[in-house]
């Protein structure tokens, strides 16, 4: 009855789908990637940038597990910037603006080079389920039946996608691409909880019609900082961006025509993200602002399209032209494609396990925007994890390749999604991590690559490079811990430290504000000989060590709390601060101590804290 057999079938060729397919194949699964069109694999349908603060952390984590995104962005990047350069390494976020065409090419080349991966230009229409409700295959639009050990759906905004431009509504997943209706019905039939979200995109401009001379140019970093750990050097020629801003005239125009936008006209029910608001939202919510900044980002070296970042809109097309004309430098700019708002179905991610498998439909995995997230990076990280676990499932093993909140931002994201669900498209922010100082973008490899090697998802080139780096780092750390001196010794070397008579290692001394790089180079000349990455890792560890030690103390205190007994007949409904989900999970598992409650899959630190407080309160007598 089946026309073909695969271990893993991935539906959707966006950022989540490409990573999922490549990761599953790297894990040794015989994998099929189904996409509407092969040419759009690796398409960046929104802004042409990858990375940033939080998002850059995710890219590095994907890269540390040998994913595609970082390498493709380095091959396609035409403007690199390390955000937060003046802040500490934990919050520095690498970002690249990519040439769209080069990015697609890079992704497609990486996919083609992936062994065990087949790509087919076929839309998936339906899933085939087995006797126990598990997924056993996929039906394509042309009626082919494909047997699958596991299926990953990464349908992005295609589930009942609806584009709004003013009063016009176009059913579509992306501009000029049909939405997936059949798949949406399938998910409904499987009983998955669906909800509606929205996002938006600005009009695209013809760069040749922009008055660049009137605008402030924004050069990228020189030298550019690559996104992938495997990239030595960026070879593309680089392009500047430019900055402009809206004017009071822009705001007047928007206010006068609010009723003609899809959102304020009441034609959209989905909830949009707070951190990526449309220009309409900005004008309404921040009425006193006289200007809103716009970044003009070139979309490619050979492409004159410019992405005006900051003015996503769903105004009618004619009004978009007037809006653009009210902006300095864009007075004569031509719109190549209007901006729009898009509404789409997503699945409530609380229906998923920590491996991103649907709890009630075994062998079905979901990743990316379908889970209520936004952003290429969030999608890619989920795709990677779903791909790895789908390969496990297809291979007859338990899908247990998980990252915890203290391992990775990807772990924070999955935990947030499956426990809290979403009320708006979920975006990664470093504020979401309680272990921010430990989860640096630049130590993603140290955090994850060894794990990835054990999981079989990391190739031999990266494994070798990683282990060489670790060996060099360990040698340098050992030396930095054993060399050092008394305050008098440092004073003789020209650096004044606290005269407390205490011996300080080089590692401790590097964290002192008085110790400049020049001082360090003079006192410990061997530092100069270290490879750049080893040196910066050493410095970062030195900088945060005192804080991380204290965090570790707090964690140990928490561990003591974990011994706290939970009374047998406890009513979790009486514990304030627990979500219904937490309550349900606790009631199912009936843990005996706070420690065992913490080991129930998916119980959040916040829920544990609430429970700990509650148990302590039990000792309080109000008489």
């Amino acid at each position, binding site marked *: 009855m089946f026309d073909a057999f695969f271990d893993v079938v991935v539906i959707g060729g966006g950022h989540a789908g490409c990573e999922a397919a490549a990761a599953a194949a790297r894990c040794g699964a015989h994998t099929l990637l189904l996409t509407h069109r092969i040419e759009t694999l690796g398409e960046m349908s929104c802004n042409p940038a990858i990375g940033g603060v939080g998002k850059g952390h995710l890219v590095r984590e994907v890269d540390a597990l040998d994913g595609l995104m970082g390498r493709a962005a380095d091959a396609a990047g035409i403007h690199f910037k390390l955000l937060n350069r003046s802040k500490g390494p934990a919050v520095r976020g690498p970002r690249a603006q990519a040439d769209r065409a080069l990015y697609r090419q890079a992704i497609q080349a990486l996919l083609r080079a992936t062994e065990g991966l087949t790509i087919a230009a076929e839309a998936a229409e339906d899933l085939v389920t087995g006797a126990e409700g598990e997924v056993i295959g996929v039906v394509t639009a042309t009626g082919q039946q494909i047997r699958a050990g596991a299926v990953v759906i990464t349908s992005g905004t295609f589930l009942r996608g609806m584009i709004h431009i003013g009063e016009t509504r176009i059913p579509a997943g992306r501009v000029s691409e049909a939405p997936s209706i059949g798949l949406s019905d399938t998910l409904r039939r499987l009983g998955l909880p669906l909800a509606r979200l929205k996002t938006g995109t600005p009009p695209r401009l013809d760069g040749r019609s922009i008055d660049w001379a009137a605008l402030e140019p924004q050069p990228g970093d020189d030298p550019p900082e690559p996104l992938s750990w495997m990239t030595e050097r960026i070879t593309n020629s680089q392009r500047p961006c430019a900055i402009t801003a809206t004017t009071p005239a822009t705001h007047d125009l928007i206010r006068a025509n609010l009723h003609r936008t899809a959102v304020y006209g009441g034609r959209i029910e989905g909830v949009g993200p707070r951190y990526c608001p449309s220009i309409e939202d*900005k004008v309404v919510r921040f009425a006193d602002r006289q200007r809103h*900044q716009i970044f003009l980002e070139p979309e490619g070296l050979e492409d004159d399209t410019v992405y005006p970042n900051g003015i996503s809109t769903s105004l009618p097309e004619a009004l978009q032209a007037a809006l653009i004309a009210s902006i300095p430098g864009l007075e004569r700019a031509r719109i190549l494609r209007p901006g729009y708002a898009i509404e789409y179905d997503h699945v409530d991610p609380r229906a998923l396990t920590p491996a991103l498998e649907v709890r009630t439909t075994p062998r079905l995995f979901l990743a990316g925007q379908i889970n209520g997230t936004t952003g290429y990076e969030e999608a890619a990280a989920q795709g990677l994890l779903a791909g790895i676990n789908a390969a496990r499932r297809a291979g007859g093993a338990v899908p247990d390749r998980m990252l915890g909140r203290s391992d990775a931002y990807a772990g924070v994201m999955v935990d947030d999604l499956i426990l809290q669900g979403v009320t708006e498209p979920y975006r990664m922010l470093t504020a979401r991590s309680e272990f*921010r100082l430990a989860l640096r973008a630049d130590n993603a490899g140290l955090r994850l690559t060894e794990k990835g090697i054990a999981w079989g998802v990391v190739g031999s080139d990266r494994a070798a490079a990683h282990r060489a780096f670790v060996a060099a780092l360990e040698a340098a750390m050992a030396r930095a811990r054993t060399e050092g001196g008394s305050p008098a010794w440092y004073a003789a070397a020209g650096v004044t430290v606290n005269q407390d008579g205490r011996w300080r290692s080089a590692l401790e001394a590097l964290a002192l504000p008085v110790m400049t790089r020049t001082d360090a180079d003079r006192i410990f000349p061997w530092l100069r000989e270290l490879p750049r990455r080893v040196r910066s890792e050493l410095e970062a560890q030195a900088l945060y060590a005192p804080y991380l030690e204290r965090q570790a103390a707090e964690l140990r205190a928490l561990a003591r709390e974990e011994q706290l007994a939970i009374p047998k007949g406890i*009513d979790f409904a009486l514990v304030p601060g627990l979500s219904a989900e937490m309550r349900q999970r606790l009631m199912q598992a009936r843990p005996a101590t706070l420690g065992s409650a913490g080991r129930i899959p998916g119980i959040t630190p*916040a829920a544990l804290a609430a429970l700990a407080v509650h148990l302590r309160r039990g000792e309080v007598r109000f008489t």
Partner: protein
Amino acid sequence: MTGETIFALASGAGRAAVAVLRLSGPGTAMAVAALAGRLPAPRLASLRRLRHPETGELLDRALVLWFPGPASYTGEDSAELHLHGSPAVIAGVVEALVATGLRPAEPGEFTRRAFLYDKIDLTAAEGIADLIAAETEGQRRQALRQAEGALADLYEGWTRRLTALLARQEAFIEFEDEDLPAGLDAAVATSAAALRSEMLAHLADARRGERLREGLLVAILGAPNAGKSSLLNALAGREAAIVSARAGTTRDVVEVRLDLAGVPVTLADTAGLREATDEIEAEGIRRARRRAEEADLVLALFAADRPPDAGTLGWVGPEALVVVNKVDLAPAPAAIGGSAPLPLSLHTGEGLEALRSRLAEEAIARAGLAAEASLTRPRHRAALTEAAGWLAELGAAPLPELRAEALRAALRAIGRITGRVGVEVVLDAVFGEFCIGK
């Protein structure tokens, strides 16, 4: 809502005109209907015949009040039954309530439920507990202030300000390339320093609120036969301690509780300080010294007819009140150990009222009700000290992410008093204040 339904006698035990039984929990409506026939209108006193649900026996004619949750004291469905106050009637109704599946409440369980249902925060719950336990006017007023949320308001105000500061710090970290107001980062450090000063001022109250809540300890120290036990009895107005002419009569610490101008005072009579003659007395003297060390105030008692003894002189200082007894036998010296003594004759009663009012003044100075809400428990002090410590750390932190860590830690510390602040609350504040998003 799930859980057990509880009841308790809210009025005092014993025979009275009226006894009030209070019910709370999801089974309240069912129990009231079972006894009273049907549920009365909410929050209206209704006269009802109460019958045993199984035997149908008439128990009492009672006023029944029905408070559907969440608009009730506990936040749950609640009711009050105003019965005729005889032990037999109460016992009959209690038996009937147990028969409908209710159980007697544990001590403090109503307040605890109110707390768990977020009707009151932990500090208010503590205030209610203190209110019930209050012995003196000062304690009652302090407890009432806390029960009404004065401390909660103060700490929640600080939590809100810390949350706002963290939001700004996070915005500064997260959205570098957005159009954020200039000086955001520096403003956070300045505001955090100001907040820390307020916390330190609140902490620098010389434990006034805790002393008022716990009571002030005054230890009477002095040589044997200086009249310590007589003084204790005179201040207590009763024979609490054994008094004899024999030196060394008091072997252990004897304590009485006094109400001095609204401040509860524990007055401790101790063994006379001298070279002990036996092991038991030696232990008594050790205990006397220990109690004096714990005391908020030492009352150093001398006798006018003898030179000041070195053992007692050692305790004279700024935290001591110097009193000379037996001024009927000899005049009091002008100064002892640099302090002007209060003259006293327990024999004639001379100086006793002056001493009593002086003690009241000292008590008010140390533990009188302050103008501002004071912290009343060591756990408040520990948490606030930690929070202030993190804010000091923030001032010294060289990087914004370290300042954010300090703010997070300070919030966690205060959260231990009132409740925790989640990431979403901080993000709400970020996106509410700043226009983020290119």
